[in-house]
């Protein structure tokens, strides 16, 4: 492998992986030995190697989500050794490298666990609950016509920065996975803050927060108890400030919006 460290010794590991045929069957943890793992591999590459082995042996490869493999799409998930996206903070699983593990380690790999994220197969969960929350209000309505000048609307830099920080949420679901209540508050708060902070999002802000919170409850996510686990495990560092912003938005909307009942 290019740029690999010649001194890094290959490792032998034992994986305990959640295997589940489909939504309707029960699953279980199955042990697999993996040999000669380079410390320079990413966690997903290590799984690729195991899957190649399984295919050679005519066994069903392990299903897991991935796409960009560069930490920007949010597709990869995996609850690794009791942590969302593994032992490192501020990283996705595709950006986690095997050098954070030791030769001889046993690694437990589980899917995100939440009633709202049913297991599809093995380590793949259905995260469409997030999409439905987005559809409930995570957008702005724009009229067609001439394109307005981008600099026409003044936005203070501090506000733009906050909105941008909130906008970096990659919808990975680690916040839900890490939260003891499987609460989606961090995700929803990132989406609500991002839009509520900017002038273009203000028109629909009250209805937006009401609908998105309602959808969050319908999907069966838990309630927030301010443990802070979500923000600690979020790969892009969405801060708890957003959750408090969401609450202010929600309280003001409930008290003053035109939506009755």
């Amino acid at each position, binding site marked *: 492998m290019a740029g690999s460290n010649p001194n890094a010794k290959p490792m032998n590991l034992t994986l305990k992986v959640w295997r589940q045929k489909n939504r309707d069957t029960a699953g279980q943890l199955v042990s697999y030995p993996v040999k000669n793992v380079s410390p320079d591999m990413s966690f997903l590459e290590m799984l690729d190697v195991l899957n190649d082995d399984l295919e050679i042996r005519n066994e069903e490869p392990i299903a897991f989500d991935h796409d960009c493999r560069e930490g920007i799409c949010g597709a990869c998930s995996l609850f690794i050794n009791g942590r969302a996206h593994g032992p490192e903070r501020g990283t996705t699983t595709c950006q986690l490298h095997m050098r954070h593990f030791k030769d001889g380690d046993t690694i437990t790999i*589980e899917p995100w666990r939440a*009633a709202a994220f049913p297991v599809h197969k093995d380590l793949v969960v259905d995260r469409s609950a997030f999409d439905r929350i987005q559809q409930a209000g995570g957008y702005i309505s724009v009229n067609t016509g001439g394109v307005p000048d981008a600099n026409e609307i003044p936005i203070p830099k501090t506000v733009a920065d906050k909105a941008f920080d909130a906008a970096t949420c990659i919808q990975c679901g680690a916040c839900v996975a*890490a939260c*003891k209540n499987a609460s989606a508050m961090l995700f929803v708060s990132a989406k609500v803050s991002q839009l509520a902070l900017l002038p273009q999002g203000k028109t629909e802000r009250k209805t937006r927060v009401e609908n998105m919170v309602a959808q969050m409850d319908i999907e*069966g996510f838990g309630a927030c*108890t301010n443990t802070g686990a979500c923000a600690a495990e979020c790969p892009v560092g969405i801060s*708890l400030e957003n959750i408090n912003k969401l609450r202010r938005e929600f309280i003001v909307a409930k008290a003053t919006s035109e939506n009755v009942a």
Partner: protein
Amino acid sequence: MGRKIIMSITGLFLCSFLVVHLIGNLQLFNDDGGAAFNLYSYFMANNIVIRIMEIVLLLGFLFHIYDAIVLVRKNKAARPIQYAEVRPQENSTWSSRNMGLLGTVILVFLIIHLWNFFVPARFGGLEGVVIEGAEYENLYIRVVESFQIWWYVLIYVLAMVALAYHLIHGFQSGFQTLGLDHKKYTPFIQMFGYAFSVIVCLGFAIIPLYFFFLY
């Protein structure tokens, strides 16, 4: 989210009750054979404002506990299948994850506590005592006697430890639940909440310890 807001408002209201309750109880330390405390207790049992606040307080507890049960159940249902391995100590504090457990300890304590002091003080069953020529109920002697029993003292001290941990998370959490968060003030609220929890619970815990060891 609405329910959580009630949780927070009732929780913070209960915190204000703790302050009043503690200040009143400090009269137990008056070196007057309990006269000041018994007069105070008489006032608390008969003043109309206090009687109304008593009902508000009861409602505060009931809403807090009811919402606690509903939310804990909702949160359990949100994760029907548990992880085989979790390392939550890496991302959150113990008290923040065990508010229901801590609350339950407080509730059990509360029942014992009310049964022993509040019920007889309010509905009769205490001995009489004469203070400045008038007859009063002697709650003071009940306090003194109760706190000669070692396991009773132990229950009190343990309950106050549980309350302290409940509030170390709960006080600042209550502000966050209301969206009251600002980088200028939040650090102060957190520090204040921590100090509040420790000082108030220590204050309560000293009472049984004082009567057990020093009286």
